């Protein structure tokens, strides 16, 4: 039974005030997909009875199998509100019908990029938090991301059923737990105060927090109960709501409200008295099959069961009763409609985040006003594999204008620069589609404020792009997404049968498209590399590659490989010199480590080649103690001209120096990409050009003489400055009960990890452990951990920082030296490092 048709959906798409674009975000296993099911059920796509079991948005076989969400899935829901419930809605609206474009996202850190892609195209977020486990690392990460994108959050405290059935906690204790969860979330949100977005913290008494049990399909906000009691007590609904949360106590004996517990036995907190206890009572009666007590209770609550449902027993009965009394969909949808912004509201303040161009041009205005008549502005945030093997839907959000079947669009890729023709295509949209879970419906056009999937553009979009009308040549693209994870784990893949190579190439191309984070590249040695955020992520990617994108052709994958960085520990022990091949030019140089935090600042873009030199020198002198004049003499950054290494000119009065700058820079880009130790990227090295002696004839100091010499002298100065390797380190968060701690510590110790924070979650037997773990040791970590703790601990790893390995790679037999040899062997280089004497020359 489907309650709505594509035509109906299409009609509401025009009412921009009646649309809500929202994503469901949470830590892994806090019940996003399950909760989403209840909403989908309300829209009539799946039967109410099975809601919670189907996981409509887990469309892939492996998602269902593992019980985790891997890809974010969009679903458009149609929902009609009653007049009565909309009575208190103050905002603009257009009838009672609402369209909810909902995106269910994965909770595992390895797939955070999917969350990022989902957040970009939504305006609001439903943050799901497990009432027992509380706010976890991934909750925090996604919340941060959401607020960074100016997405308004509402919260639901989920898995309420655990309180009643599993833990059987009493009302006051439960209240304290909920209160803490909400407080924790608010602490994170408070750090993102944003004048445009206003107060983003959530308050149960304002209706922005719901309490839900996704598995059983029920949920409530305080509004539900306030409505119920308002008439009974004869007070205002909003006043009642305030009384239902916080320090408000009611004593049924005296029938008085107080702000302090009076100490009398019957005095209870409002929330406990009027919300928690009634639910507990209903659940208990159902579970104990006390039907004679149940029916009158239900009549009092104003809900009735169908006759066949009355025969249910125990849990099914409880589920049915609760679903009828407090249906999850109405509570949650009401919360979304009331408290999440419509596209027209949200785009007013989000335009600054979104649009790269000037904020007063027609495109910015069209986005700001969510103008369906304006120029098309559409952001494609991800590519979704279509049933038709090898093809993809481009999935995104229309921010302005309308996209329609057959429309010719201008595709601006991530490398597009306005005014140039790089990364730019003009193609027509073959079909516009709206997404409804496992089903897709074709529609004629989609106006702004909605999510949309398009057919026929996949051959021009790798991962994301901005689309606009063909003629809008001066439009700037929408800002690229910033991911919170980075692809640090890599495997080399090759095909078993050499002649399958074209298949592999084609497969990798598609894999790169299907996932926002995965990177498919090729190594110098000719190996194809797939890089992902973590072991699980890679595993899924490789499975997709082999089964879906290569038609089952077999591939061989190498062990996971981690990329390292090369850095230096100290300033070079002496000024090194290299002579050009013709012996007529000499370059003198020293290397030294960059100041603490400077490499990170360059990574983040606070300091970079495009800065105004004045600003840059200000930051460098104030924060990093650089000499003011010196800061102006930075020649370049590298590798790729933006990397965290630099060349600084320290020479005084050298003739022709400006002539060789370009050549030195070219040599630097080359050398910083392939360091002297193992040809890994350099990181955090500052090279100081101390002196230069050049030949008087321009022909003898050309690029051919200087570029290879510069490269050699960079290597020589790196080798004389105590070179070290940097390895990537994960921040691991593990949540486990006390008895599992021993196992966790021993596994972490084996793996060179170290714990830096251990906190007991107040009110629970659970511990929260944060540790640093070298990425190279992380392979097999989670399975080992599970084995050591009999499945009670589940780690979440996020790349955190680069850590210097203390051993000296130049000292034979040291750990770093072994690593260097391994890397060199893998890359097909000579196993012995090139000695310093090859790079340094004597006078």
């Amino acid at each position, binding site marked *: 039974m489907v309650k709505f048709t594509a035509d109906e959906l299409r009609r509401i798409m025009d009412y921009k005030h009646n649309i809500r674009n929202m994503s469901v975000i949470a830590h892994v296993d806090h019940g996003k997909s399950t909760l989403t099911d209840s909403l989908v059920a309300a829209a009539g796509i799946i039967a109410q009875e099975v809601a919670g079991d189907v996981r409509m948005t887990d469309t892939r076989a492996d998602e269902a199998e593992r019980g985790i969400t891997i890809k974010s899935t969009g679903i458009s829901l149609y929902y009609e509100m009653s007049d009565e419930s909309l009575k208190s809605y103050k905002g603009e609206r257009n009838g009672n019908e609402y369209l909810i474009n909902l995106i269910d996202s994965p909770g595992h850190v390895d797939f955070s990029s999917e969350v990022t892609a989902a957040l970009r195209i939504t305006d609001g977020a439903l943050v799901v938090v497990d009432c027992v486990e509380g706010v976890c690392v991934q909750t925090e990460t996604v919340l941060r991301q959401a607020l960074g994108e100016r997405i308004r959050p509402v919260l639901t405290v989920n898995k309420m059923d655990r309180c009643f059935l599993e833990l059987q906690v009493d009302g006051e204790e439960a209240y304290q737990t909920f209160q803490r969860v909400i407080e924790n979330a608010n602490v994170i949100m408070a750090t993102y105060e944003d004048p445009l977005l206003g107060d983003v913290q959530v308050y149960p008494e304002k209706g922005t927090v719901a309490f839900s049990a996704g598995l059983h399909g029920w949920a409530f906000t305080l509004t539900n109960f306030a409505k119920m009691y308002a008439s009974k007590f004869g007070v205002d609904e909003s006043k009642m709501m305030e009384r239902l949360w916080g320090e408000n106590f009611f004593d049924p004996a005296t029938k008085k409200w107080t702000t302090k517990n009076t100490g009398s036995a019957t005095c209870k907190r409002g929330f406990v008295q009027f919300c928690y206890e009634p639910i507990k009572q209903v659940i208990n009666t159902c579970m104990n099959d006390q039907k004679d007590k149940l029916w009158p209770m239900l009549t009092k609550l104003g809900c009735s069961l169908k006759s066949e449902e009355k025969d249910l027993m125990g849990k099914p009965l409880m589920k049915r009763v609760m679903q009828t009394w407090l249906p999850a969909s109405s509570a949650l949808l009401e919360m979304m409609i009331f408290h999440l912004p419509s596209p027209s509201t949200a785009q007013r303040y989000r335009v600054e985040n979104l649009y790269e161009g000037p904020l007063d041009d027609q495109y910015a205005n069209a986005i700001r006003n969510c103008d369906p008549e304006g120029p098309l502005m559409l952001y494609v945030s991800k590519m979704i594999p279509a049933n038709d093997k090898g093809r993809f839907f481009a999935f995104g959000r229309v921010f302005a204008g309308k996209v329609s079947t057959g429309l010719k669009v201008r595709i601006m*890729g991530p490398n597009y620069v306005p*005014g140039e*023709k*790089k*990364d*730019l*295509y*003009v193609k027509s949209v073959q079909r516009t589609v709206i997404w409804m879970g496992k089903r897709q419906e074709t529609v004629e056009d989609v106006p702004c404020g909605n999510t949309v999937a398009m057919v026929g553009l996949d*051959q*021009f*979009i*790798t*991962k994301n792009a901005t689309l606009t009308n*063909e003629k809008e040549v001066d439009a700037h693209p929408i800002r690229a997404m910033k991911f919170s994870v980075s692809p640090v784990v890599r495997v080399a893949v090759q095909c078993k049968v*050499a*002649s399958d*190579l*074209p298949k592999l*190439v084609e497969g990798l*191309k598609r894999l*790169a498209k299907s996932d926002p984070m995965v*990177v*498919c*590249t*090729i*190594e*110098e*040695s*000719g*190996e*194809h590399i797939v890089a992902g955020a973590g072991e699980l992520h890679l595993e899924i990617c490789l499975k997709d590659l082999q089964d879906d994108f290569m038609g089952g052709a077999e591939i061989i994958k190498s062990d996971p490989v981690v990329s390292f960085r090369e850095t230096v520990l100290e300033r070079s022990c002496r000024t090194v010199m290299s002579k*050009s*091949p*013709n*012996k*007529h030019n000499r370059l003198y140089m020293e290397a030294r480590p960059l100041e603490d935090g400077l490499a990170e600042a360059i990574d983040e873009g606070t300091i970079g*080649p*495009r800065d105004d030199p004045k600003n840059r020198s200000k930051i460098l002198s104030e924060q990093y103690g650089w000499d003011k004049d010196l800061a102006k003499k930075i*020649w*370049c950054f590298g590798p790729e*001209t933006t990397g965290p290494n630099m060349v600084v000119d320290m020479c005084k009065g050298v003739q022709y120096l*400006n002539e*060789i*700058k*370009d*050549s030195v*820079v*070219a040599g630097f*880009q*080359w050398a910083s990409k392939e360091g002297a130790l193992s040809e890994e990227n350099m990181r955090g090295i500052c090279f100081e050009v101390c002196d230069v002696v050049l*030949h008087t*004839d321009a022909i*003898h100091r*050309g*690029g*051919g*003489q200087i*570029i*290879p010499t510069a490269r050699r002298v960079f290597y020589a100065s790196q080798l004389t400055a105590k070179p070290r390797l940097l390895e990537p380190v994960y921040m691991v968060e593990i949540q486990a009960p006390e008895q599992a701690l021993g196992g966790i510590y021993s596994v972490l110790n084996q793996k060179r990890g170290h714990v830096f924070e251990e906190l007991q979650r107040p009110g629970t037997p659970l511990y929260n452990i944060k540790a640093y773990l070298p990425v190279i040791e992380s392979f097999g970590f989670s399975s080992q951990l599970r084995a050591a703790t009999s499945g009670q601990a589940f780690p979440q790893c996020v790349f955190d920082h680069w850590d210097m390995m203390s051993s000296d790679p130049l000292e034979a037999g040291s750990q770093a030296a072994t690593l260097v040899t391994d890397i060199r062997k893998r890359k*097909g280089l000579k196993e012995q490092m090139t000695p310093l004497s090859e790079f340094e020359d004597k006078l």
Partner: protein
Amino acid sequence: MDFESNYDIAATSDFIRTHNFTRVALQFPDDLLKDSTRVVAVLRKRLQSLRESDITVSGEETEIGLYVMADTAYGSCCVDEVGASHINADCVIHYGHTCFSPTTALPAFFVFGKASIGIADCVESMSQYALTNSKPIMVLFGLEYAHSTQQIRKELLESSTCKSDLKSEVHFADVPSPYMFPSKDMKKLSGIQEEACGCGNNSSSDEANGIIYNIGGLTWKLPEGQSMEDYSLFWIGQDNSAFANVVLTFNACEIVRYDATKNQMVTDLSQQRRILKRRYYLVERAKDANIVGILVGTLGVAGYLHIINQMMELITAAGKKAYTLVMGKPNPAKLANFPECDVFLYVSCAQTALLDSKEYLAPVITPFEATIAFNRGSQWTGAYVMGFGDLINLPQVQAGNQEEARFSFIRGGYVEDFENQAENVEEEREDLALANATEKALQLRDNCNTLIKGDAKSGAEFFANRTYQGLNMPEENTTPQPFVTGRKGRAAVYEDENNKH
């Protein structure tokens, strides 16, 4: 070994006599240069004696001029025809390792030299290998071992008759006649090659019902219906460029090498296999290039001009810019003088073309690799071609799916070549073009180092982006200056400089 037989004096003098050459260039590689005077002396004596025995027949005879050529401009494996024509030579005698590339103008005679080899040990290894291998074995060898193949074959036959349990048959490649005459007609080139000489891997079916393979001077014939994949290769000789060439060309075969100097078998050839993968990477790199430098690495190998033109067309058709550079043997310092080139295309004989460009600023690829890289839609299938003749005859790949943008594995995303993009984007209206041009002219150039490889589309653009733009013209004082005497001396120290270096 006997000096005269090592340098094939008898055959050489016969060759000169029978063709009546009067000016003969002797081309020596650097390592054999020390023997050159002796060779000339012995050869001259021999020719003298031949003439004396002949003089009774013809009566008059001119003196035969022998010239030693050293330090060739390109690889020493190719016949240096330009060098030879400086002395108006009418034939070239080539000593040492050769790639057997066909010549364009001059007849050539090749003296391979005769390296010593422990025949018994070699036969032993070979029969050992044959015992363990189920496929038939094709024996290939470095040309310096050509002299002993007859004997190896004989001894192997004897040993196999006494053991008689060799599972697989052993075939030997043949060495063609050591002389070569130029062929002028490119169309006929491949046909002639098969009969006279080999360059790269030519295969064709001929009347004798078989496929003839040619590589680096070796030829052999396979019966109808068999391909090289059905054979295992046994290589006798050094791990040199000729061997690399064989490994790349027959990369689907199992190959072992018998090192004759160390008398041992080398079965681990992972290093050689790596080369193929490395070449594959270079092709991917080349796909991203905007500016291609064509290095002319030969002036002798037949068909080189044709290839250069073909490559020029290919590169232009792919929307890239090509510059032709002639610079003798390339080295890192020379090529780094052209930092604007993203990739170099080295047109040279099959055996010098494979340059491991690790030390170079930009990779160096072969014409075959360029064909794969710059032909949209063509894919690396594993087949590898080294010679020009085969490249010319390579079937033109139909332009692939032009609809799809090109995926670059170097950058991990879609990139578009400028030419194709221009077609994609509708041309701007003319009145707008001027406005756009002015707008761009006023755009703030980010004056930070813009030497990012791969951004410039032509050499001119690259230079425009450099921070150093050359000397500034003095704005005042444009009156002619009196001339001054320039400097004298060597670049290392001019006469007016005091010797401080």
